């Protein structure tokens, strides 16, 4: 197995005395996970933040139940009789724990439900960014050469866009009827899948016909890496062409647009970090050793390099989450995020701007929730970084 992660976790530096040797032996007997947990436990602030995140997840999942438990009103229920004769929002009290918005909706309920949107975006968009970023980053870093050039330039192109403008443009373009119809995407994927699948096969066949060993045979040890992408793309193409309704859009207005936009804008950052790490890891002795033992690229990438990327992936992911929560809030604030009447903290803050000095509660509730959530994820991120990589600790 690879030693990278264990090395990182165990190498705290310094001379090992006899007394310390015993302790070291004790430490060595622990799994990396146990060591990580031990370090994390010492970071009380991170633990409190983690507790807050767990609570937030609980709130997001059981928002409906909590609303009933507190006797609050459903998040989208409007009550114009709660407003005054000018249509001004009602202050906290009178059946509304945190007051109402200008439509007579319960700010408490909407704040709870807003957590759901924030976390959905946070986890889904971040998950997609991680999957895309890690896979492409590993491929670019491991294969280098033309593959790296192509992927890195793609990252540069995406990074060159002003992210917010890109997001606003995509959000606006997709916000009415969605983007990317299923039949068009299916057709494109089928073509792409065939190209990805057939080109290596054709090149292999040509090489073999000419009696050269230029391209590795499709049946070689890396067949998974060589066939799988094309096959996967083909399967997806067939799925969108045959299963999904031809008029359906893959990027539906509302939350899917937000997630799509955040993913498009965010994956290059993750890919770059991973690529840099892989460029370094691929030269390590344990990779050389695996290669000399005849391990395939697939095995080296997934069994030897990927485990060594766990720490940076976890750390960067926890830092990505609050960024994405803020990004969603910003998009909703600018009107291209989730669509009404779905409660979103960003949209609530945007709605509150005009009346913030006469209805302080309206902006305060989602504002504080957003602040605490972002703070909690950042603190947890810092804590994880310290626990996973003590050499960079505070």
């Amino acid at each position, binding site marked *: 197995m690879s030693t990278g992660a264990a090395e990182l976790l165990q190498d705290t530096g310094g001379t090992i005395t006899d007394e310390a040797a015993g302790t070291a032996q004790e430490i060595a007997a622990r799994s990396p996970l146990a060591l990580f947990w031990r370090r994390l436990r010492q970071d009380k602030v991170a633990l409190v933040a983690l507790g807050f995140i767990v609570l937030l997840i609980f709130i997001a999942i059981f928002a409906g139940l909590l609303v009933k438990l507190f006797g609050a009103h459903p998040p*989208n229920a409007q009550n*114009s009789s709660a*407003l*005054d004769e*000018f249509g001004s929002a009602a202050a906290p009290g009178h059946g509304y724990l945190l007051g109402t918005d200008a439509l007579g909706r319960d700010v408490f309920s909407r704040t709870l439900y807003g957590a759901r949107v924030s976390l959905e975006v946070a986890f889904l968009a971040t998950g997609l960014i991680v999957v895309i970023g890690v896979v492409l980053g590993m491929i670019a870093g491991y294969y280098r050469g033309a593959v790296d050039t192509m992927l890195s330039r793609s990252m540069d192109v995406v990074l060159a866009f002003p992210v917010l403008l890109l997001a606003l443009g995509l959000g*606006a373009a997709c916000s009415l009827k969605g983007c990317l119809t299923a039949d068009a995407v299916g057709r494109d994927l089928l073509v792409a899948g065939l190209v990805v699948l057939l080109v290596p096969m054709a090149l292999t066949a040509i090489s073999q016909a000419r009696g050269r060993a230029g391209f590795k045979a499709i049946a070689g040890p890396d067949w998974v890496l060589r066939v799988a992408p094309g096959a996967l793309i083909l399967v997806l193409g067939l799925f969108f062409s045959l299963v999904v309704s031809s008029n359906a859009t893959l990027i539906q*207005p509302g939350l899917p647009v937000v997630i799509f936009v955040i993913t498009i804008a965010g994956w290059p950052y993750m890919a770059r970090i991973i690529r840099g790490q892989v460029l370094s890891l691929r030269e390590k002795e344990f990779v050389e050793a695996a290669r000399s033992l005849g391990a395939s690229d697939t095995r080296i990438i997934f069994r030897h390099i990927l485990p060594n990327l766990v720490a940076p992936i976890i750390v960067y992911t926890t830092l990505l989450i609050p960024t994405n929560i803020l990004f969603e809030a910003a998009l909703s604030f600018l009107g291209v995020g989730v669509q*009404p009447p779905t409660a979103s903290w960003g949209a609530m803050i945007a709605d509150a701007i*005009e*009346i913030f000095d006469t209805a302080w509660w309206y902006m305060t509730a989602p504002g504080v929730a957003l602040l605490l959530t972002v703070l909690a994820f950042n603190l947890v991120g810092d804590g994880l970084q310290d626990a996973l990589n003590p050499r960079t600790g505070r």
Partner: protein
Amino acid sequence: MRRSVRWTLCASVVTALAMFLAACGGNDNGGGGGGGGTVTTQTKVQEGKKGGSLTFLAAGDVDWMDPGQTYYTFGYQVAYAVNRTLYSFKPDDSIKPVPDLAEGEPEISADNKTVTVHLKKGIKYAPPVNREVKAADIKYAFERSFSKEVPSGYAGTYFGTIVGTPDKPNSGDIKPISGIETPDDSTIVFKLKDATAPLISQALVMPITTPVPQEYAEKYDKSTPSKYNQYVAFTGPYMVKNDPTTGKLTGWQPGKQIQMVRNPNWDAKTDYRPAYLDSVTIEEGNDDLTTAARRALNGSGLACCDSGAPPAPVLKQALQRNKDQVVFVPSGGTRYIAFNMTVKPFDNINIRKAIIAFSDRNALRLTRGGAVLGDIATGWIPPDFPGFKEGGGLKQNTDLDYLKNPNGDPALAKKYMLAAKKDDPSLPIDANGKWTGGEKILTVATNADPGKKTAEVFQGQIEQLGFKLNFRVVPQDSLYTKFCSEPEAKVAICPNVGWFKDFVDPQSMLDATFNGKNILQHGNVNWPQLNVPAINDAMKQASTLAVGTERNTAWAKINHMIAEQAPAIPWIWDKSATVASKNVQLVVNGYDTAMDLNFSSLK
């Protein structure tokens, strides 16, 4: 006339639409075009004190300084201070126009096909033109407004029946219009293709009748759009500061400010306007209306705002603390929620009636600030408008049960839903009168408050009836240009449309918006796409009637016929509000519903 965002729609639509039906719909940031009428919440205009300077705080800029192109409330506010039209309105009477350049009432021939207007003498242009206004200048003003170089938003709509006017704007050259004759320097005659003189004579209040000196303007009119916009020759009590030699407007920095000073060639004896102030500065870029309105209320020599009404919380505070610093006037229009009658299920009249019956129009009104900002609408002829009284006033159309209860009537809505089911058993309606269909109904609303709030309240209401909406919010300008005014977009519900008067005639309120003959493929403002032959025919007949009770009654009946079709939910005849500092004697003109710079003064 349009207000704030509505001009954006027209700017793009007008060039593409052969100047037809460009009067456009109401925007959501500020009410509508012209004002209400004799009954306003404005106290009687008092005599002011001469002298002093006033600063008006505005969010945006005028659409055009060129009187041939301006079609926006803020543009009108400036235009009527620096220009003179054939007829115009005193601030406290927006029903009866008074002669301005004209010497007296328009003379209408017996066959309703000729309108003759005689001009006053001694009215001169500001520097650098300096000469007296002639009838030929008004003829040229019309001719240039039918050219591509001067894309007027309404010339074709209201003056397209003048003999010799082109169907589409002329390009490359400004061509003479044979139907406009100037037998002498102080007489202008409009010859019409149809018997539409009553309508034309009412429309002579519009800025298109501002004289334009051909020998001075034609060099600028060779560009597209015309550069005259930067070189306007003024005739009003004020003028935008300019270079006295070239006429270049030096006092207009678009997006920043407009400096207006006295026109040295203006003769008070020829004008009914007192023009108390020495100068007016319009400070633009005050996007934050809350801050701007508060600044005006607490400051000195300030007034606000150009977008119809300051936000409700500010108004609330102002009415509680500075009541005399706020003036309301009816906006002279109706806001409504339009159903697209060509899209299912709104092709079924009982579905439409059910939704109207269910709608809580009081809740909708609260999104704009409540009762202080307008009466609940029950039709499309607004208060104090010709035809309003004849139609039953504030109770017009309330004989129709679905328009009777402003708070909504769920039992009646259920009755109509079940009636719809009876009409068409295939409709997904359950025994409780609830819609059970799963398909989402495309609803496109503005993304700016208060329109967005209105749409969300409506969304909450209609969803209680079981309908599921594909609810989308878009910028106000694309709301019209890409969705609601484009029948191909097949938007089922447009919750943020409105129509406001261009001049005081009921035909201007109903013809463009509900005549089936006016359904356009682009820039359509008959948003429900109502096309009922009986209504179209009634409009044709009513358009030929002379101004007066008979005409008003005919249009009031048409208003009722439209309501019987339940094409939309009329929900507010709103008012426009302007605020000013304590030392400002604030006067608002009921026609353009904006602060009247000719009558306002410092205390």
